[in-house]
């Protein structure tokens, strides 16, 4: 099904990184993963971060996703500097604002597709049972898995698992979805399907997506491409329109 091109609804800034440095300490050796990154992500952008292995893509996503703290620099998320927040405060930001899609899906094997998605929204604890059910079924419907809700993860294909993971990331309507190499474990056809789903979510829900990859196919779908090399941004380009829905 062909989708409409995304409408630019809001050009307000969601995230700003100012001089972000991340240094890992391996014994007495300091390994810089990010070296003074300055970046601004606007609301409802669909951005890819690409680059070779070891360029700092995953570290950048972890820092943006509040999973890791930068060694230096400021992170302005939704007009708040979150660089120096405690673990507990970062956990609350993740819970309420950020969705994650992992390369290896990380679904809970003892829960059905429905329950895996439900899990992400239930921890918010401010919705009724009916509201939760409606939201979960709606999002499963959007990713095309409404009829597979009772399947266990081991009864789903790789692409279906990744769709469940996307649904899990989106169900709580986060401001930002971070996806670390979402197509790495998928074949090209399935990767394309998954990317279309993500793009559709971006288009319909106006959710901001930021994903890392080194897959050229994935880059074709991005509205903005950021290239990282040795912990530095070497390229940052926006495309007005992406014609991948035909």
């Amino acid at each position, binding site marked *: 099904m062909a989708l409409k091109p995304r409408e630019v609804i809001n050009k307000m800034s969601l995230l700003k990184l100012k001089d972000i440095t991340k240094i890992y300490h391996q014994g007495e050796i300091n390994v810089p993963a990010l070296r003074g990154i300055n970046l601004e992500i606007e609301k409802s952008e669909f951005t890819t971060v690409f680059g070779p292995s070891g360029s700092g893509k995953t570290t950048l996503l972890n820092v943006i996703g509040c999973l890791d703290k930068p060694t230096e620099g400021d992170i302005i998320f939704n007009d708040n500097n979150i660089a120096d927040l405690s673990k507990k405060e970062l956990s609350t930001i993740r819970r309420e604002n950020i969705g*994650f899609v992992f390369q290896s899906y990380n679904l809970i094997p003892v829960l059905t597709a429905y329950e895996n998605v439900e899990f992400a929204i239930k*921890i918010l604890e401010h919705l009724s049972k009916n509201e939760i059910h409606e939201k979960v079924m709606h999002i499963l419907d959007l990713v095309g898995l409404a009829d597979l809700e009772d399947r266990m993860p081991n009864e789903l294909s790789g692409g279906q698992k990744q769709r469940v993971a996307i649904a899990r990331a989106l169900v709580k309507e986060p401001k930002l979805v971070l996806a670390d190499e979402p197509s790495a474990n998928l074949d090209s056809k399935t990767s394309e399907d998954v990317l279309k789903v993500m793009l559709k979510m971006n288009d319909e829900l106006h959710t901001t997506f930021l994903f890392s990859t080194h897959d050229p196919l994935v880059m074709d779908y991005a509205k903005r491409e950021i290239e990282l090399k040795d912990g530095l941004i070497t390229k940052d380009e926006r495309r007005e329109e992406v014609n991948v829905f035909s």
Partner: protein
Amino acid sequence: MFLVKLSLKNLWRHKRRTLITAAIIAWAIFFYITFDSMLIGMNDMVFQNIIDYEYGHVQVANPNYWSEKEELPLENMINNNEKLNQKLREIEGYQDHAPQLNFQVRLNDGVNETPVMGRGIEPDKTFSVLNYEDYIVEGEMFQMGENKTVIGKRLAEIMKLELGDYITLLTRTENDTFNTIDAEISGLINTPNPNINQNIVFVPLDIAQDTLNVDNKVTHYIMRLNTQNFNNSIISNFQSELNDFNSNLSVYSWKDLDEVSITKAKQSGNALILIIVLTIAAIGIINIVILSALERMEEIGMMKALGLKEREIIFSFVLESTWIGLIGGTLGVILGAISVYLMSIYGLDFGAIMNMDISEYGIPIISTIYGGWNIGTFVYMFFFAIFGSMLASILPARWAAKKDPVQAIYRR
């Protein structure tokens, strides 16, 4: 509620591991309950043996005699007069009483000699207090005034004596002179109390009194009351009534015996050993939580990424262990109940099983031990399994929950 559901589902992720851990807990509880039941049964039997074959419910003696009774002195004895006997019959809860005269004696069969305890008794009265009558396995009990004796079957075996043999009992009189009793063995006794069977020689009370030159004196009275579960107030009333009559007499309950307190102490010691067994079950829980955490590291990372708090992750793991404790505890209690039921019906012949006489270890039992019920142990062990499992899992669950989310997600 979702974490409760998740913890229940996680139980069946590795069914075999869950069941093995629950089985270890169940085994520990089953073992504890069974052992506890056996100890209760053993205690009951020890106490019943002491009451039925040696002590009665209470004994009345001069406190000075009582403090040295192990030495079998012929001092501080009681004058066995009718007035005192009548007084004893008037005591609240009275059932029967019998006088006894214990004395030192050396048993000589003409070749060998061994030190034993002589006990002068009035057969009829003694039979009304102690259950000897049914345990005279050969011959019969003597009558008062007869130069006859009844000895334990085990003693007869050791000394190679038979019914109808004559023995000489060498003793010291109250005046510290030697005297003897030449008596024919009229009966052999074999009670469930090994002390009676191998250490005591019974003679008629009047013959003992004549030989020891103690007139109508006895060392003590044994008494049976209407129930063995008498309380301290009955003993206190008994004591005060007796004091009004004779201030030189004291009442001693079977519950105050050294053997009773030793047996209770042994039970505490065994409980300590069994707690060690239960610690092994706790190690099983710690092991399963660590294994689960290691296996689910990526899930833990994902949960933290989704914003699950550390305490919620800890709660999830702890709850999972608690369910295992609940399964193990329930199984253990059920198996324990079956075991105690069977032991209370059929008993356990320890001597036959272990091919030994446990009386050699100072436990006055030679027959089958029947299990005793202690509902408190069941309740305690059930909750111990649940809370023990819960507590054992807290530290490893905390370790898992504190994992850095990035390291957990990427298994670094």
